[in-house]
């Protein structure tokens, strides 16, 4: 093969755009990192030390991660069967559902959270009576958790639905479903053993985006009054200089680590979707 033709096969522009994109993403991160080291030249990692010594950091960070995992789990439980059913039986409903999932882009989070507070800060009564079934969701911890996870599910919906739906497009789910049915499988078996494994990489990218949204989210968390990582970082940012930079950088690394682990764990079982 001649040098010229080898050169032609080298995807030059693809690499250019990849590098430009990577720089756009990595440069601010590097700047943040560099800045976080400048607090005390004698102790380069002072900002990190201080941050990790703070109990609030650990509590909010872990709490937000749990929220993110719960959001991902419930989103999958809601969205996978929905997207599946729409592809299988209700293709005409697809446009409507797509429109609904895009609502978070149209209605800002602040409006969502005010609506939630307005509705759920009232107690639940038996309809048309004053007999109370449950106190307002906003009044107790578990209730607030339900609210905030539901809110996050709404915010994550555009990403989650799109990834899942795209994942389902790459496999012929209708025929696979029928093949499984004729072999005796019920809906649960079909979804858990056929559909989910075949859209795994799509689920992973949906989960990644959801994770990123939830861990850094400020609006819902602060208005619902939960001690999440987003509001903590926000507060810190208003009062300190170096710690927020350090924490932003660390939380990035941790998210990447988590995703790397998921990729590693789920990637180990051979090829699945998109193999063709």
């Amino acid at each position: 093969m001649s040098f010229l033709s080898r050169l032609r096969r080298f995807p030059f522009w693809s690499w250019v755009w990849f590098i430009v994109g990577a720089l756009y993403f990595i440069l601010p991160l590097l700047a943040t990192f560099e800045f976080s080291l400048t607090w005390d030249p004698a102790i380069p990692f002072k900002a990190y030390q201080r941050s990790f010594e703070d109990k609030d950091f650990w509590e909010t960070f872990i709490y937000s991660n749990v929220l993110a995992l719960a959001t991902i789990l419930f989103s999958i439980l809601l969205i996978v069967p929905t997207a599946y059913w729409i592809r299988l039986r209700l293709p005409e409903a697809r446009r409507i559902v797509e429109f609904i999932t895009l609502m978070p882009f149209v209605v800002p989070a602040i409006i969502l959270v005010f609506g939630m507070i307005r509705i759920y800060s009232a107690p639940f009564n038996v309809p048309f009576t004053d007999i109370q079934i449950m106190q307002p969701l906003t009044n107790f911890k578990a209730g607030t958790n339900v609210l905030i996870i539901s809110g996050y599910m709404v915010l994550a919906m555009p990403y989650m639905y799109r990834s899942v739906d795209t994942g389902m497009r790459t496999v012929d789910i209708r025929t696979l479903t029928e093949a499984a049915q004729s072999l005796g499988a019920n809906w649960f078996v079909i979804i858990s053993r056929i559909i989910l494994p075949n859209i795994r990489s799509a689920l992973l990218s949906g989960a990644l985006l959801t994770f990123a949204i939830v861990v850094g989210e400020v609006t819902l968390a602060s208005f619902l009054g939960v001690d999440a990582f987003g509001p903590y970082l926000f507060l810190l940012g208003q009062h300190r200089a170096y710690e927020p930079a350090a924490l932003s950088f660390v939380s990035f690394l941790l998210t990447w680590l988590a995703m790397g682990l998921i990729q590693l764990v789920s990637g180990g079982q051979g090829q699945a979707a998109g193999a063709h």
Partner: protein
Amino acid sequence: MSYLSLSNITKQFGDTVVVDNFNLDIAKGEFVSFLGPSGCGKTTTLRMVAGFEIPTSGRITLDGADITEKAPNQRNVGMIFQSYALFPNMTVAQNIGFGLSVRKESKEMIKQRVDEMIALINLEKHANKYPYQLSGGQQQRVSLARALAIQPQVLLLDEPLSALDAKIRVSLRAEIRAIQKKLGITAIFVTHDQEEALSISDRIVVMNTGLMEQVGTPFEIYNFPQTQFVANFVGSLNTANAEVSEPANGLVNVDGVQLITASDIKSRKKGDAIRVSIRPERFSFADNQKKDNVLDCTVENITFLGAVVRIQVKIGNAKFNMDTFNNPFLELPKIGSKQQVTCSKEAVLVLDE
């Protein structure tokens, strides 16, 4: 006593009748093909047997039990799809074992049966491969093994060979037939390829726009087509407009040439317009033996088709094709020369429209 029986099956989608009063009894171990042009309702009929569609009216019984409205996963029916439909996330062995693991069979039982099936389709070397690592023919064999692993009462195949290339298509269809005979399994095979249907089936159901045109053995379907549609769809055919000249003696007139037919035309009147059909291979050049029909003709064209040579002749004003087997010593007539062709009266078919 039939094993699988479809009685008075009608299927409508909205106002469109897709299958119209379909009646068929299939014996245990029989291999039946549904043959017909695209859109005639073959797949729909098959899907009703599988349980993916429910008939608008009519009943389906399998081994004495009414299964008309049973859910597909409650029927014991194996299905093979044109697109193979293997589970991409599972290996060959896992695909084949899927139905058994759904039925909660023991690990040892599944392993034994999977090994048996893999041996049956000769894919021992590929047991741990994923579907995308196999060729189309291999994938379809895996899908066959997967369907057979659950020991289905009926095997349904919807154009299983259409996505394969010609060579594989022929060898795989022989393999399917051999396995079906060996296991004695009842099978319905959907195809729009008449050669495939003729070569593989015990019986053929020829379908046309939702209606059954004719049911019979390949021999009957080919040699004794009952309708114009069947005659046209199966094999190639000459058809010509004709006129009844002597109903009692079976004489018809094609463009001024008198032909004698064995078809029953006694109920027709002299002068009735009809159509006669003659298969190209039923003509031969005249020798000295006595034949029912001896006709003067002019050779118009000769086409070499490999195993056969197709000669276009003009009899009166009507054009006919005649096929003759090719061999190296064949003496072909000159184009434009005058010849005599013959055919028996059984070869001259007068069919219902």
